């Protein structure tokens, strides 16, 4: 946090204008939540977000005039996950090839979990699940049996 310099202080502070819509804290409301696919099947836990700067003139936000100079508008372009647990626990930065992403446009709903509008099996991210299915569990007898008795 930068402290406001006294010479730039002019009169009482105006309350921060509240932007329209829902305000989400990325850390509190998004990170480490479950990502579920269209059929409520867990896909991954959300490890990070991909942010990309956008041209200021093109998308004037609610804060357009009041932002300090040098601050850029960013938008969330993708959900990131992948085998990155080690760096998330011990710190550091994984090579960018580790990250696997799900485009933000697939997000259908944000609640106590992040819900996607696509099937998990169609995402690259879920390859370890598919590999285990095809090479281990699917080959064991009864692996495709439905315990609830649906055909």
């Amino acid at each position, binding site marked *: 946090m930068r402290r406001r310099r006294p010479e730039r202080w002019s009169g009482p502070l105006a309350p921060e204008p509240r932007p329209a819509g829902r305000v989400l804290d990325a850390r509190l*409301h998004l*990170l*480490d*939540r*479950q*990502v579920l696919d269209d059929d409520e*099947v*867990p*896909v*991954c*836990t959300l*490890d990070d977000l991909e942010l990309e700067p956008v041209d200021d003139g093109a998308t004037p936000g609610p804060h357009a005039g009041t932002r300090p100079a040098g601050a850029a508008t960013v938008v969330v372009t993708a959900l990131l*996950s992948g085998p990155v*647990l080690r760096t*998330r*626990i011990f710190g550091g930065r994984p090579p960018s090839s580790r990250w696997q992403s799900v485009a933000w446009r697939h997000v259908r709903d944000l*609640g*106590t*979990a992040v819900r996607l509008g696509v099937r*998990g099996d169609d995402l690259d991210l879920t390859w*370890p*699940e*598919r590999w*285990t*299915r095809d090479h*281990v*569990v*699917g080959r*064991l007898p*009864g*692996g*495709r*049996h*439905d*315990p*609830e*008795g649906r055909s």
Partner: protein
Amino acid sequence: MKKLLAVALGILTAIGGFLDIGDLVTNAVVGSRFGLSLAWVVVVGVVGICVFAHMSGKVAAVSGRATFEIIRERLGPRAAGANLVASLAVTVLTLVAEVGGIALALQLASSVDHRLWVPVAALAVWLVLWRVKFEVMENVTGLLGLALVGFAVAVFLLGPDWGALLDQALTPQVPAAEGQATYWYYAIALFGAAMTPYEVFFFSSGGVEERWSVKDLATSRLNVLVGFPLGGLLSISIAACAAIVLLPGGVQVDALSQLLLPVAQAGGKLLVALIIVGIVAATFGAALETALSTGYTLAQYLGWSWGKFRRPVQAARFHVAMIVALVVAVGVLMTNVDPVAVTEYSVVFSAVALPLTYLPVLVVANDPEYMGEHVNGRAMNLLGTVYLVILVVASVAAIPLMIVTRAGA
């Protein structure tokens, strides 16, 4: 009947917590050494697990999120990872003991060496995990586990001096032959057994498996209020049996078979047979509970697809995790380790896992985003906070007491 089956989840969860093989023996040890002077701990533990199982069941019913998903979400990867490692250690150690316990119980019934029964027991557990519907699994093991009520029956048949027993329970004193530290070590072991973290993992995930919604809040409450007090009652009954028969005789309990001595004296062969059925069902149920909890915690922390309601191919890594846990259990047991001694060391890991499990449950049960209008009331929060303090004290004291008393020797 339908109402009775509705509480099967609570009964199975409580059996896994209070009446798994380690606790069966610990209760008898406590009864034979301390009489009923530690019964108050079980009561404190029952209230505590009721409070937190109720909260976790409520969160699962209202938001559909199981407990370890919440732990990961609120604590982040680091603290939740520490909890995962500790919880997995407790759960897998207990699973090892349970598979050994089924084998020991079958040895009691058949006189065939328990090491021969170990692979059979593990295979049976796996087949149930692999094929059987969740409801069928919990109903059968829960109902058969009720045969352990035989311990309560035995207490009545033994016709004890009720005044003396009540006196032991209501004015607890450390027996002259035992040290203070040993008394408190067993107090923490009993409290930790009552509040083992895999109970809430299993209970909340079981709620998701049964597709609880807001409508099922009453079912959840009923499960909690029937299951855990029943588990506590049976665990006190076992201690009482041991206190009546083994304490005056100066018998030191160190094996499962000694549990049957008071029962045989009270009710003869028939009651012994009933109790053996109960022990097999309880250890089998506890094995299922701990194996499933292994899968639940790993899958929920790592964001894998999980659940017995899915076909195994649709929760592939979840099923592989459980298979690996069972293979590890058989491997450990084949080293000829004593299954009962194995659970004693899980106290150490509980120390880390207990506060890190119950704090996020308490926090999320107060979060309107998850709970809407069903957030905790003030009384619930007060109880939850008091128990968190007790949990922290118990977990800080557990390891030093274990070292000082050489695990209660």
